[in-house]
């Protein structure tokens, strides 16, 4: 069976930091297809946000891509001009920033802020814009959307502000949505509602999506594939069931067992030591050019020393 063409495909992406010799992302390869939700997990400082910013082409000053490619629908974003990128961003390629209300402009109503996105990419008359805005607010679960469209960010709760960001990112039906810790500031009941709403919207539009998070529970419940970043490297890339059944890289194992221990007293970490050992043997047996080993169907792990 012919594999579906990915929406986003990173190949050997390397990003260097401001000081000479600092590498923020090293040789990252990843792909995500339409309708698929990819989780990028890792602790703070692992390079998750840099990855997202590199894809969006909005890296901070002095941080730059030094190698690899970022193919979006088959075209390399790294070769596009700023004007071309601006046309893509917000329409075909969207990002939800972490921080909820802080990511909104406090001086404009939320309806206006969604309208700016529409006007940058679509040509609609005002009534059609209004309809689209209210429809979006409705579909992300904002009660009384006609009135809320005229609210300023400070009049909204954190959960509402986060929903506005989802509406804003999804209004032009992007092919790819990147969400950076969309729930880290929210209470659990609200976070669950926001994620459920975002997931429904993404499924309806068939967009590809990347969720950057530290919350493995949200990953298990929503995502199709998991990529583990640690120290700027891709350590493991796996289907979600396989990842949780046998996290294999020591860093992934520690993360999964921390999440399980956090949840209950008696949970045994799902860490099949034998696989790690076998894998280490496999890696010494075949020192191929690539640094990854296949441990189960579709489940790739970066080689490591099983010390």
């Amino acid at each position, binding site marked *: 069976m012919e594999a579906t063409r*990915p929406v986003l*495909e990173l190949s050997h992406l390397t990003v260097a930091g401001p000081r000479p010799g600092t590498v923020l992302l090293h040789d990252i390869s990843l792909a995500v297809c339409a309708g698929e939700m990819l989780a990028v997990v890792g602790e*703070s400082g692992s390079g998750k946000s840099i990855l997202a910013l590199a894809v969006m082409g909005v890296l901070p000053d002095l941080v730059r891509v030094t190698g690899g490619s970022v193919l979006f629908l088959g075209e390399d974003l790294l070769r596009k001009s700023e004007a071309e990128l601006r046309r893509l961003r917000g329409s075909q390629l969207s990002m939800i920033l972490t921080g909820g209300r802080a990511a909104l402009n406090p001086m404009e109503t939320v309806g206006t802020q969604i309208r700016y996105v529409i006007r940058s990419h679509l040509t609609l008359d005002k009534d059609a814009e209004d309809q689209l805005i209210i429809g979006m607010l409705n579909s992300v679960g904002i009660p009384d959307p006609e009135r809320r469209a005229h609210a300023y960010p400070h009049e909204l709760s*954190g959960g509402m502000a986060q929903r506005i960001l989802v509406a804003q990112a999804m209004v032009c039906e992007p092919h790819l949505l990147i969400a950076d810790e969309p729930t880290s500031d929210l209470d659990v009941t609200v976070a669950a509602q926001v994620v459920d709403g975002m997931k429904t919207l993404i499924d309806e539009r068939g967009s590809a999506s990347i969720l950057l998070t530290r919350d493995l529970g949200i990953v298990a419940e929503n995502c199709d594939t998991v990529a583990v970043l640690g120290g700027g490297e891709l350590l493991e890339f796996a289907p979600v069931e396989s990842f949780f059944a046998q996290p294999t890289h020591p860093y992934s194992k520690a993360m999964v067992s921390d999440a399980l221990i956090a949840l209950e007293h008696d949970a045994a970490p799902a860490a099949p030591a034998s696989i790690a050992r076998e894998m280490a043997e496999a890696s010494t047996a075949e020192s191929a050019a690539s640094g990854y080993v296949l441990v189960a169907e579709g489940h790739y792990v970066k080689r490591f020393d099983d010390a």
Partner: protein
Amino acid sequence: MLDLLRVVDLVKQFDLPRTSKVLTAVNGVSFELGEGETLGIVGESGSGKTTLGRCALRLLEPTAGAVHFLGKDLAALSHSEMRQQRAKMQIVYQNPGEAFDPTMTIRGIIEDPLKFHTSLSRKERHAEVQQLAERVGLDVALLGTRPRDLPAGARQRAAIARAIATRPKLIVLDEPTSALDLSVRRRILDLLIELQRDLAISYMFISHDLSTVRKISHRVAIMYLGEILELGPTQELYESPQHPYSRALLLSVSRPDPTSEARRLPLPGEIPSPIDLPPGCPLASRCPLVESVCREERPPQVKVGGAESDWWAACHPMAATPGAAWRARLEEAETHREVRRRDRESMGLAHFERLVGSTAHHEEGEHDG
């Protein structure tokens, strides 16, 4: 078990400036805390848990109700008596980076309470600080540095060292691990558990993070809009929450297990404003099981599992429905989401080998032994 702390019908209100409105942060809370026990206080933002913690230490004066610490009514103590008591009651905040004086060294920060509460000489104090640092696993080489030079986990260790310096009986821990990565969080929790075992300290552990509270607490109180809606032994309550709010809260936590289906007890909307509280149950505006009585009268405390039980929930419909039928009603209100499975060809993984070049295949039977 001796009750170290007894909080009775505690109310804390704040008058809002330039209006006649009142914000009720804590609305009639009662509980006891035993010696060497941890009570987890769980609630979402705005539930009043931090205000409750501060009132328990008399860092805020309660509007009504009483706090008894070691049998004494704290409100009746004079300023100097209260000051003596403070050595026995400490607090650790979420962001020690902000709670510390940035110009002081870590040594000075840990030493400070010893200056106030002991008559140790400077030399003795420094020896004591050294011991405290070792006790909490803080590298003594860091004592000469300033808070900003420490990673978050080490700062929290310093805050704990400062808190135990005066040999307290009670420590209020206000979201002490919320800002930390999971691996660091686990080590700090292990430290707290170890200190409690060795020093018989009681903890009031305030957090919005249900999994952290589960790990450390003997009993847990679920707060919402200034009230405790359910209080009971941690393990049992987590396994079988009785109040609709507790149930909704616990079902919202996603499990790191993709084979479990997503179950929810939906609570539409968000926590209401604590200004001019309506009468009745605080959850009435969002509860899927709401009845008319819920909007009018405050809910009664219903014992779970017999009259002698130390587990209760405050809920009208629950009071009217016997045990097994109540569980069925709760489950009826739940929603389920189907687990969707994708085939491998439609996922990005199918392209990985092409992207990285060749991959070493590890297949069964290939490497025996």
